[in-house]
């Protein structure tokens, strides 16, 4: 029996960073906004105080400091760089997409970029159009990047360990709405979750709900509501988008025959679109109904609360989509 402790997501995140700093002197951290502007950020400040010479607090210069981390990774460090709000990553896009992601392949495998880019994506409430992006689909269109999107304290702890050990650049897709969630985290210091292995967050027979990051929590909430209506939903959490555990999704659809893909990217060319493609290419014969996407609508994220709620993938919309694909 695995020994665990109940922890907040924010605590597990900081513990994961602390473990990497303690066990690998090549790990250096840039930026302090892993936990956004939430009160939890104090834990990151305390970690910084414990490892002052391993932290760097950069100027407001995303292109410059993210690129600096990439260069440092080529020169022997294993940087973990925080970009804070995901929308700010666009300021650093050339270095991430055109340098970090390409270097290993372009150099014929001679130079690797072992580092992690952390950012908080998605609708956080009142962020409006310039602070609410979910750029994981854009990053997923970039060969060479690994992408992890944890949804629980356990997963963030285990995935950070794997990302830090990886010789590839990894985008760590995070969400401020996860920080106050809690769950069990293994005591084992060496606990790690391999990339490319999905987790069935809830087993079910009637419909597959695919979701990652914060929306796993909403999918689980939807599954509870569906159960009250006699529908047994299975929640599949890929945990990493790149690599993607296609097999787990296909297996789930083979069992349920029905699919709802939940994702916080905009609808067009979002993560959900790719999952739909994977399933229709590989498990078309298993589908008993046309799959449905529940995503952020194709509009810039509006500020006003009723508008914001109207365009984001809410629990109610997940329930409605599940009812639709199951013929209710």
């Amino acid at each position, binding site marked *: 029996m695995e020994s665990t402790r109940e922890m907040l997501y924010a605590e597990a995140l900081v513990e994961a960073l602390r473990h990497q700093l303690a066990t690998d002197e090549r790990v250096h951290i840039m930026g302090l906004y892993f936990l956004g502007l939430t009160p939890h950020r104090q834990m990151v400040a305390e970690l910084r105080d414990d490892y002052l010479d391993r932290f760097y607090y950069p100027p407001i210069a995303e292109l410059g400091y993210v690129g600096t981390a990439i260069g440092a990774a080529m020169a022997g460090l294993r940087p973990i760089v925080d970009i804070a709000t995901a929308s700010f990553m666009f300021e650093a896009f050339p270095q991430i997409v055109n340098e970090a992601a390409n270097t290993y392949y372009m150099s014929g495998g001679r130079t690797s970029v072992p580092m992690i880019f952390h950012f908080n994506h998605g609708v956080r409430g009142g962020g409006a159009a310039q602070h609410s992006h979910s750029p994981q689909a854009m990053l997923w269109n970039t060969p060479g990047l690994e992408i992890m999107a944890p949804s629980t304290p356990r997963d963030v702890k285990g995935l950070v360990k794997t990302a830090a050990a990886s010789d590839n650049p990894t985008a760590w897709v995070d969400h401020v709405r996860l920080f106050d969630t809690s769950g069990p985290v293994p005591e084992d210091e060496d606990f790690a979750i391999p990339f490319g292995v999905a987790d069935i967050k809830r087993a079910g027979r009637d419909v597959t709900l695919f979701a990652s990051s914060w929306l796993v929590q909403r999918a689980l909430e939807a599954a509870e509501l569906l159960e009250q209506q006699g529908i047994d939903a299975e929640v599949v959490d890929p945990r990493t988008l790149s690599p993607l555990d296609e097999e787990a999704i296909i297996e789930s659809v083979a069992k349920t025959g029905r699919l709802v893909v939940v994702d916080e990217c905009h609808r067009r060319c979002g993560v959900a679109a790719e999952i739909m493609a994977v399933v229709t290419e590989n498990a078309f014969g298993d589908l008993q109904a046309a799959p449905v996407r529940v995503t952020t609508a194709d509009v810039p994220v509006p500020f*006003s609360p009723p508008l914001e709620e109207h365009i984001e993938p809410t629990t109610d919309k997940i329930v409605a989509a599940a009812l639709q694909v199951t013929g209710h």
Partner: protein
Amino acid sequence: MTPDLPQNQLVDLLRRMLVIRRFEEALIKLAGEFDIGHFHVYIGQESTGVPALAQLQTGDLAFTTHRNHGHLLARGTDPAAMLAEILGKATGTNKGKGGTLHIASPEHGFPTTSAVTGGCTPLATGAAFGFSRRGVDRVSVCLFGDGALEEGSYHESINIAALEALPVIYLCENNSLEALGQKANEYPSSTMSAAPLTDLAASFKVPTITVDGTDTGAVHAAMAEAIGRARGGGGPTFVEALTVRWPGNRPLWPQLLTGVTDLTFAWDEAAIPEEHSKWHGAQDGLLRYVRELVTAGHIATDDVLALDGEVSTQIEDAVQFALDSPYPEPESAFEGVYA
């Protein structure tokens, strides 16, 4: 000093400053009741924004930042529509789509507000490029804090403006002079190896002016020179206004740490409380301007209080308008994605 302007214009500048001050104070109170996201107020910088922007003409454009409220109000944007926007109401300047960070008022010369640090510098430069290519006698003002100088966008933009002699004024409101927040690990503030900040323009051969941002007259004179150069085909100017970060801006979310501004502090030094005496007595550009106007005999203290009463009523009405306004229809989220 007071600007070299007729008395009625001097009082008009004061009125605009008071609108900003009372607006932001009211907003901080409202923010205690509504979740309006992360917001930023302009308290303490009125003596920069108001005299600087008062000199723009219809058709000139300005591009501001996350700290945009004061700039828009300085140009006459309706406080009621702004407060409605900040509360996400349908009657807001942006129909609830933008919120505090993105207030737009094209009729007052603000096509958009980018809240991305460094987002405004290329846009302001581009507006000037447009004026230049169209051959129209217009100028563009880029408003930003010292932090924006850390972004590459500034350096790339000012180089283009210098090479093309574009009619743009880069007005840097340096409010990190007392950035205690940085030490307290609360607030990322200017982290710049270059000093003074004007070196970051001088190296591009752009003329620079450094001015005390709490001195309304000095700001007015500096901007008159810069705008005159731009209109005369002399190209860009970089103005650094040295402002003081208002104590209420040091926490992560603004707080009325110095209380609701008591204008009598401008002429009754004995009334200034011990706590924050430096702020009220020397650092608040609004109180300084009132003090200067009263001392020079441009306005009587009773008239200051009467004007403040009018402005306060206007802001109370604006708050009521915002509160009474409806939220937008949810379906309107899908409107206006494309022109």
